[in-house]
């Protein structure tokens, strides 16, 4: 089983900080309205929780390109294991957000025709790895071309 690049924790950590910041501002406004001092301090609670979550999430995240399917294991509160048979892959993207570019990371997103298709994405890969994975998945999808998906 392959693991993600450890730098992915930083992208998650940054999003935790952004959430905390937004929450802090919102709480500060509410606190001002209700005349409760320092309500925004509550937002600081999010930070340790979120950071722990990010670390655990990194530890849980695993994926493998099996013989017939892409297999993912992830999730902290709810553990999720997903198998995406190659026959079912409609198309594959690599994506790089601004933060990911900054950290030198990329994600691979796999689309199926299923009703929960787009949630199959692998974050925190090195760009070369993401590129290679995308091509590998594409080739496997073509090789295993079977009956029309829908």
């Amino acid at each position: 089983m392959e693991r993600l690049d450890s730098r992915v924790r930083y992208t998650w950590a940054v999003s935790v900080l952004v959430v905390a910041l937004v929450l802090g501002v919102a709480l500060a406004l509410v606190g001002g309205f209700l005349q409760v001092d320092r309500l925004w301090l509550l937002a600081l609670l999010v930070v340790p929780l979120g950071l722990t979550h990010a670390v655990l999430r990194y530890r849980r995240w695993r994926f493998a390109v099996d013989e017939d399917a892409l297999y993912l294991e992830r999730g902290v509160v709810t553990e999720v294991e997903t198998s995406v048979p190659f026959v079912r892959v409609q198309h594959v993207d690599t994506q790089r957000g601004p933060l990911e570019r900054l950290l030198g990371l990329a994600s691979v997103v796999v689309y199926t025709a299923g009703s929960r298709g787009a949630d199959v994405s692998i974050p925190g890969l090195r760009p070369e790895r993401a590129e290679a994975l995308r091509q590998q998945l594409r080739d496997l999808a073509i090789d295993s071309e079977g009956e029309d998906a829908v």
Partner: protein
Amino acid sequence: VKLHPLTAVRDALLYGVQAGSFGFFASAMGGMTEMVPMRAAFVLAPLGFALGAAYGVARYTAFEYELGETTLAIRSGVFQRQAREIPLGRVQNVDVEQSLLQRLLGLAEVRFETAGGGATEGKLSMVDVDDADRLQADLRQRRRAARQGGADGEASEPEPSVLYELSLGDLLVLAGVSFRWGVVPLTLFSYPFVDDLLVGLFRRYVVEAMLGGTLSPSDPRLLGVGLALLAGYATLAWLLSAAVTVLQYYGFRLARLDDQLVYERGLVQRYSGTIPLEKVQSVAVEENAAMRRLGYAALTVETAGYAQGGGGGDGGERSPSAIPLADRGTVLGLVAAIEGVENVAVDRPPERARRRYAGRYALVVAGLAAALAAVHLLVRPLGVLWALPVVALAGALPGAHLKWANRGYHAGDRHFLARTGFWRRSTRVVPYYRLQTVVTERTVFQRRWGLASVVGDTAASSTLLSRSATAHDLDDREADALHDRLREGLVADLIDRRTVGRRSRVERLRDGEG
């Protein structure tokens, strides 16, 4: 080919009135703020109407469709021109709808659904009803030709064979046992009715007695009045729901025509649809508590045609009913014919799942009790309401049992069966080769009990209401085994279908009639 000319009239009126009333209100607003004189309404409203009507006519002239040998081509749009081609092999459901007025004028609306896109992909509104029939027949014929490898126009149109008809008696049962939540907002709109019956009575006997001082606000009789009001409202809503059901499902008929299921229904508004058997993703046996009691069941057939939450036309229906209500045997017979599954029996989750549900419900009750206690102590005494958590607790244990007893799964030779729900029990039958992804989920709470859920996702149009086939709360190891089984089943079944060419649904149905 153009749409029916009356479409131009309808669109002209529709957009004319829209734009006209916009002009009217705009000038009325302007008049109030004294920015434009009120008189402007006499100019702006007709001007708006004229512009809107012109747009409506332009829409009609811009719209053109053509059913070719391999594609359905549609050109549309006044300002933003659009040309669309739908390969016929990709068409999923084809629905024809006729409102009362359209029936009187011999018109119909035809909708072609594909698995792509959000809204209905090909909507022909309106065409002559004969054209609608011809479109469907042509589509069938072209599909047949494509299947037989281009031998064009030879095969004659086969006769439809009726698989099922909803009798009047069954229709009334259906109306009685099914409740449509859609009527709840309707009851609020039918305010005068509700006002007279319920609010009127309430005002007369309760409010006046209170004002007269003969009834105090803490009188326990008020609880009775409240319950009676609730019961009255529920009866009203139920009657309304029954009426809607009768209107919708009157004259329901399901037939097989070539490689398609064809159904029609409706008393005032006629509705008919086709489901190509080769496009069926999964079928589901639906039985609510009352139907199970009476030995009835319903069958829905899922394709990937309907977009999320859209589609289906009236009643916000997601996947069309193949059978809205019939005795269980008939329904299972059709499941056997469509999917080749004789038995829809499932294995229940392990016993500890039941304890989990009981614990969960008990927690909810405890929360309710705590909330009530807080109100009682901090806000005001609640009187007899303390009995509420006790009643709820009495319901928690049977509730947990029923939830557990109505869940289960079965992994057969070619199909995955998953059942859930007490009030509305649904047993989904998914052929392995229709699976898209397989997902195992373990929440924090499930992990405590060593349980897991396995989801077999298909390309069927999913909605919030109908989740994909899920085997809930299996033993951890069993879940892993099922996950692998589904994955292997998909691959094996696909290879099998490619090499051997299995007996198709169409053949099974044909033989079944034999």
